[in-house]
């Protein structure tokens, strides 16, 4: 368990020192972040969005400098001007995409293919940008993953899967076999879902296996099957929630109206035109409930898995996010944000960050005072802003 993949760490190992748990502490305050947030919002509106680059730097600095480990805070170094240029390029590309879609549907298809092809490159650039602009005790993080690795990790499974599917459909059409075609559709759907955990795993591995703090490299030791485990348990939980919802509903109807009455009501309702709409609404409610319950479960398990299987040099992470606690925070955040028409958003962000960060401890093996920095070049923010614009989840 204490084996460090990739050989002995280049620095930071004090001989004979046992791992000592050092908590990550978050010191941000919701009220203070609200004041920063509202001023950011006002200036962004008045400057027609230009200030949003400065706003992003202020926000990131506030969260980084309120996240402390071993007495020192993290720091964010990106320059607003770099971010502004990245934003402008990303938005221009998006606008071109929208105009092209309106003019020529086929061009949109080509652009979509180009976008998918560019995705690993965008992920690569965004990770480089984020790491190079984050530091702790004056030591910059870094990301050493190459573009080639990104394509191998993210593109290869997709291409193989498309080839398999394409060959399958071509074969079915060739033999004019309807049965095979009908069989292929569920296989295609299930297969695509089955590919998702693998892609997620490969993304995380690409990320956590190539990051470093100064000259101290990070290593990721999770396995694809662990990701499949989290996804599978989440899916089972979702099914249980949906079934439970309808069972509860049926019980409630029976309890209120008695059995005969309920059957009569159901029979009448089925005939009425509102039945379809009602069923659709119930379905949506069940789906939403499943989403609300499963999302915190998935996030908690995923954060714990990703961090407990990551080390930087000899130092391990211990992440103990509790599903129930995360669920309570997310639910109360949702209710309060809706009730305040969004004014609670900054408070919600601070609450969530506090819980997720303070659930992590660093099992520091030896000295945190001897981490050595490395030279890093400056990176354009285009990938970062494209990832931001399309809401790619590559958060640390």
């Amino acid at each position: 368990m204490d084996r460090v993949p990739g050989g002995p760490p280049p620095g930071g190992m004090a001989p004979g020192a046992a791992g000592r748990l050092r908590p990550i502490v978050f010191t941000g305050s919701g009220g203070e972040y609200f004041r920063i947030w509202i001023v950011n919002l006002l200036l962004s509106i008045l400057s027609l969005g230009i200030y949003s680059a400065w706003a992003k730097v202020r926000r990131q600095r506030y969260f980084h400098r309120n996240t402390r480990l071993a007495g020192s805070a993290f720091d964010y170094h990106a320059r607003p001007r770099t971010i502004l240029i990245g934003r402008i390029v990303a938005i221009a590309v998006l606008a071109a995409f929208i105009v092209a879609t309106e003019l020529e549907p086929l061009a949109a298809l080509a652009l979509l293919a180009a976008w998918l092809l560019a995705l690993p490159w965008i992920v690569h650039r965004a990770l480089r940008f984020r790491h190079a602009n984050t530091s702790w005790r004056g030591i910059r993080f870094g990301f050493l993953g190459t573009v080639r690795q990104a394509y191998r990790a993210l593109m290869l499974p997709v291409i193989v899967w498309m080839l398999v599917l394409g060959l399958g459909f071509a074969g079915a059409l060739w033999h004019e076999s309807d049965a095979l075609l009908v069989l292929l559709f569920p296989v295609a759907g299930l297969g695509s879902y089955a590919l998702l955990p693998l892609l997620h795993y490969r993304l995380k591995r690409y990320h956590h296996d190539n990051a470093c703090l100064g000259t101290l490299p990070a290593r990721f030791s999770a396995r694809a099957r662990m990701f499949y485990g989290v996804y599978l348990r989440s899916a089972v939980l979702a099914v249980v929630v949906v079934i439970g919802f309808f069972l509860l509903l049926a019980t409630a109807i029976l309890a209120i109206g008695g059995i005969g009455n309920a059957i009569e009501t159901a029979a009448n309702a089925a005939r009425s035109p509102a039945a379809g709409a009602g069923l659709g609404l119930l379905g949506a409610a069940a789906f939403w409930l499943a989403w609300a319950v499963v999302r915190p479960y998935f996030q908690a398990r995923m954060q714990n898995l990703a961090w407990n299987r990551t080390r930087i040099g000899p130092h391990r992470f211990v992440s103990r996010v509790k599903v129930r606690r995360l669920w309570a925070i997310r639910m109360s955040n949702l209710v309060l944000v809706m009730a305040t028409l969004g004014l609670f958003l900054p408070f919600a962000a601070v609450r969530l960050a506090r819980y997720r960060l303070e659930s992590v401890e660093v099992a520091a093996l030896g000295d945190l005072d001897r981490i050595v920095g490395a030279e890093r070049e400056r990176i354009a923010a285009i990938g970062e802003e494209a990832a931001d614009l399309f809401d790619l989840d590559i958060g640390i």
Partner: protein
Amino acid sequence: MTTPTVFFGRYFDGRISMPVPVAMRFDAGALVVVAPDFERREARGRYRLPERTEHGQPILHLAGGGQVEADDVGALWRAARESGLRETPASLMSQRWSLALLALVLTIASLYAGYRWVLPWAAGVAAPLMPAAIERSLGKEAIAWLDDGLTEPTRLPAARQEQIRARFARMLERAGEAPAPEVLLFRSGSGLGANAFALPGRTILVTDELVEAAGEIGSAVPDEALLGVLAHEYGHMREHHLMRRMLKLSVLAVAASAIWGDIGTLAAVVPTVLGGLDYTRELERDADRVAARILAAADLSVEPLIALFGLLRGEELDEAATDHPAGWRRYLRTHPMTGERIELLRAGARQP
């Protein structure tokens, strides 16, 4: 001169994560860092002060590499202020609740002003600049959508269609407008009832039912009521109302998702839908103004148009007696003939 305030912290050289305890002071704008075995002096502009916040680690970046983490934000800023160093306005605003609440009020006010005045103005400027190809392709999509179940081929004889087209073209010519739109389409609007649309790409679509209803309005000039409707739809078209609406809704959607997107899709969609409804009424008034002016310039009266709306509304009230109650109602809902609109039409017609 009093001795400058000294504040304490930890220095990091950027090469190793080892903290070095230091004492710091500002000296005529320069930052002096004193460590047990060295002293560094960074001139004004060669170091970056952090934004002042109550929480969070204040970090000063030095241009020559390295950084200092100050222990006490209060001491740091006491020293900085003595030395005449200032904070940015944004950071000052974020420190006091009174100013933050002022920012909240200003945010709401500027959102409202942007929605009420800036956005319609910008959409009006941008809409005519959009490539004609986009409008044409949008128009094609709209016609395909209508023809897919909502409309059927017209039952009007070709001669009657040509007659209406010619009268429409003559009215526009007499009003000094650009030549008639490229396409004046007729459809039997089974699912739409009596209706007329201005579609993107210089196209106006009129249903047989509307032509029929307009025929019931007696007037000295043939088809005067129908020409009124066409003038109104022409107003939508000339002013690029559909493109304006689309631009406005796109901006609204982007802005709403930028501000409320974190909450969920619904929170971002609601403002867009509400904004769309509100904007429609404004555009109707605008099209009425154009229609009144064209009718007056072509020596036509607005009264038959008003009477036609009155007829459609009467049909709606007497719903059971009509053949296409749903269709009448739909047109009235998007074209509500209020007293205000009638006033506006009459006033517009009186102007030279």
